[in-house]
């Protein structure tokens, strides 16, 4: 008898569980899908989080996949907004692009490293494994330890296209899986060099001037600093009302402040 009652109780609980799960998703139908660059993804997620708090009726899904995939998804209308961490190619110009922020990639070394600036050529030499000693840049006769990001990372992708051009990063590079980990390694090793998002730079490391331009909010905004990339939203006309509401929010002072707090350079 007792067992039967337990069984009934259990099955009732199960039914409630299932019902509980399903009702939550069906009541919200205004869903907006954003897909694309893995570099933009964390910022888009942050924005959508705050957006959904402000407007509880809206639902925003953020997905990764890469800039090219995002632009493609936008063209095929699989996503209402595509995100990209590179400029559009000429053949992609039929889509409308909205710059939401700028990101600089800072080249960092240990604060005690005497080197203050570096050229793109030297940078390519170091990361392709051709320049092996700091003495070749006017520093101590010590080996250079260069730190890169893991394959698939948006920051690595941007570094490869902006700094390395056609050259490959050597397989001798130390590999870390976040901006923070790269900063930690460089901050503790006087002979290391690495690259991270400008917003992540702090007192632990020193950012080098690249081709004589020091990275700063203004040089990144004016695109004088060479290792600068735009963060784009890409939309396909006609824009859905949910998408345009979200884009409006991102471009307001409030939205831009969120991005700046997360380490990007705003457009206002």
């Amino acid at each position, binding site marked *: 008898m007792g067992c039967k009652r337990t069984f009934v109780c259990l099955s009732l609980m199960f039914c409630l569980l299932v019902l509980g799960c399903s009702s939550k998703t069906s009541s919200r139908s205004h869903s907006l899908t954003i897909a694309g660059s893995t570099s933009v993804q964390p910022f888009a997620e942050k924005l959508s989080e705050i957006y959904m708090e402000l407007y509880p009726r809206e639902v925003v899904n953020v997905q990764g996949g890469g800039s090219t*995939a995002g632009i493609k998804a936008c063209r095929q209308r699989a996503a209402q907004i595509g995100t990209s961490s590179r400029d559009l190619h000429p053949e992609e110009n039929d889509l409308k692009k909205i710059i939401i922020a700028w990101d600089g990639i800072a080249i960092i070394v240990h604060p005690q490293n005497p080197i203050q600036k570096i050229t793109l050529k030297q940078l390519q030499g170091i990361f392709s494994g051709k320049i092996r000693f700091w003495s070749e840049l006017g520093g101590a006769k010590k080996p250079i330890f260069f730190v890169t990001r893991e394959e*698939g*990372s948006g920051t690595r992708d941007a570094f490869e296209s902006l700094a390395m051009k056609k050259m490959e990063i050597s*397989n001798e*590079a*130390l590999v870390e*899986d976040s901006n923070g980990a790269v900063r930690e390694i460089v901050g503790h090793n006087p002979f290391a060099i690495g690259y991270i998002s400008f917003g992540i730079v702090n007192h632990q490391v020193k950012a080098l001037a690249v081709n004589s331009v020091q990275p700063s909010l203004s040089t990144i905004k004016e695109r004088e600093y060479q290792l600068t990339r735009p963060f784009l939203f890409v939309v396909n006309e006609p824009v859905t009302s949910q998408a345009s509401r979200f884009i409006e929010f991102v471009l307001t002072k409030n939205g831009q402040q969120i991005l700046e707090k997360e380490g990007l350079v705003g457009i206002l």
Partner: protein
Amino acid sequence: MKEKIIEKILMILAFSAIGILFLITIYIFKEGLPIIIKVGIKDFLFNAKWAPTKGHFGILSMIISSLAVTLGAMILGVPLSLACAITLAEFAPPRLMIILKPTIELLAGIPSVVYGFLGVLILVPFIRDYFGGPGLSLLAASIILAIMILPTITSISIDALQAVPLLYKEGALAMGATHWQAIRLVLLPAARSGVVTAIILGMARAIGETMAVIMVAGNALRIPTSLLNPVRTLTSNIALEMGYSAGDHRTALFATGIILFIFIMGLNILANTIMRKK
């Protein structure tokens, strides 16, 4: 009636645990096999170029690194663990044993990220300053792993040594052997299968460890030529790159998992066979 139902429920629970293992196996193979078939098993295993976003899927350098790190950990860890086990089982007074054994077992409970953190803060700068290289290296990973496998090998070995009938030892001592001779010539050979099992389980732990290794090994893709070179193991490769991977890249990470799975299954089967031989 009630007995029967409880029995059935327990049975279902037990089988669900096995079922989960079964599902994981199927899933890993389903996700990973396509890329192995696409690039060919030979190219996947014996090519050292790994650049999945550019179409290169060779994991040779990681297989070599995994084996090298594990071997290093064994060379450093096994003598240490066996010494610990023999001391605790034979030489330490029982009261000390009561304190020491749980302490060593406590080492197993420290999260691996803590080992990694200590490694980065203490071991890596030490290696960099005194031996050269970037500090993040094969050597650092081996040392950290040696400490991590110590409790596994020690506690299973102690059990194996204590399971040897007292008669053996008494016999040896009665024949005029010294205590050390009795341990070396009688106890250790008698406990051999247990000790070997302990070592193999320690090895499986070392090859499967991820977090601590990522933090101290440097994760470079080159095949190591020195103890001071940074290395990337199979496990670190999966954990490092899974975040942003998509398409073939993701599949290739699952394929790395298949190879790791086969390695660890092999080691466990070996451990079980040796254990059963006894």
